[in-house]
């Protein structure tokens, strides 16, 4: 099992931004939100947020890896 297959679990939003001016590869997805997640297991991870927008302090759960990028979603 490589690192990209291990779930980083849950965490809290340390900081976030909604990217409007996207790099070429992500133009079709803009605007999209990215965040630095403070993981419950320790350490921080830069991830994409899917669904509802999040703010600093929000709880988030890992959803899945897509092309090696971790996606998180706001805890309901």
């Amino acid at each position, binding site marked *: 099992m490589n690192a990209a297959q291990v779930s980083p679990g849950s965490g809290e939003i*340390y*900081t*976030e*931004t*909604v*990217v*409007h*001016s*996207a*790099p*070429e590869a*992500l*133009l079709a*997805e803009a*605007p*999209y939100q*990215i*965040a*630095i997640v403070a993981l419950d297991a320790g350490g*921080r*991870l*830069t*991830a*994409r947020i899917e669904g509802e927008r999040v703010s*600093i302090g929000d709880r988030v759960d890992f959803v899945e890896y897509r092309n*090696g*990028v*971790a996606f998180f979603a706001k805890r309901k």
Partner: protein
Amino acid sequence: MRAVAVVGIGKTPFGAFPNRDLRSLAVEAAENCLADAHVRPSQVDAFHLGNFAGPSFVGQSHLAPYVAASVGVSGVPATRFEAACASSGSAFFHAFSIVAAGICDLVLVVGVEKMTSQPTPRVAEILASAGDLSGEIKAGATFPALFAMIARRHMHQYGTTREHLAAVAVKNHANGAKNPYAHMKKVITVEQALAGKPVADPLTLYDCSLVSDGAAAVLVAPLERAAEFTSKPVRVLGIAQTSDHVALDQKEDITSFPAIRKAGEKAYRMAGFGPADIEFAELHDCFTIAEIIAMEDLGFAGKGEGGPYVAEGRTCPSGEKPVNTSGGLKAKGHPVGATGVAQLCDIVMQIRGEAGELQLRRHSIGLAQNLGGSGATGVVTILGEA
């Protein structure tokens, strides 16, 4: 260690110059600098080139001898320094080091970047290569996005507002409008800055520095020989270069740049004084939040107090601590590899009393701060009357 001086400066205007290539910009700045110091190319002992991404922007590698030979400098070490946006600050630090150590006498330091020949999305991609491609950039971060996340956290922890960020842009645009070398000579209002096109929340177009072409050069010499070249030598009173993580998510506290804090402490120690003695500064405002944080890291303002400090007008040319009188990266422009040396040129012009409409009343000790990436390289230089 020998005392070191800047004995010559040279610049090109900053802007978008479709008919100029990298070499011609670098050569123009270098020749202006040699002329300023009345030095022939054959007298130069070493050539340092600060350049971030020439191989990506224009395709040319082996840039230092490529430019040096065109200036007429050959048969000496010619080396390119790359430290993202702190490339030429780093080139200058290493020029200082070899002159201070007595290895070389005359070192010509040139910073250059030719950015506007690439379409904007490609420029963004090249700039992003200064971040961690395996993590933050892969996840969709651009450079504005990294600084947007820094701004969000600073706002959260210290109550910094978008109005504070806008105050940086408004001040630097007002200054740049008076600088004949500036890329953008356009005065803006707080309302305009706040209503700018969103780039990465909370940053708008007016929070971001410009994509520019341009070059700048300085000639470094031992202070004991400075009188051979100029009647107005400027002494390097303190200097340091430091490093830190490239990836933002590896840093403990993103509301500060530890590389800048440490470089500032070391430079102050070398100079034998502290922030209160700095009369003016050129700070690395690649994004408005970066100027606010740099002021805090360098001790101009308390932690978290940088925003109000700017908004109260204390860093305007008429304030107690003028910052980015040149217009900064925001308005003067940010040809990445040229920025560090261009800051030094602007400080030297102030110290010599040659800054024209931008000339400050108190101008004997100035500080330049050059930041690489989102804080992985820091260079702080304190210059003063010799």
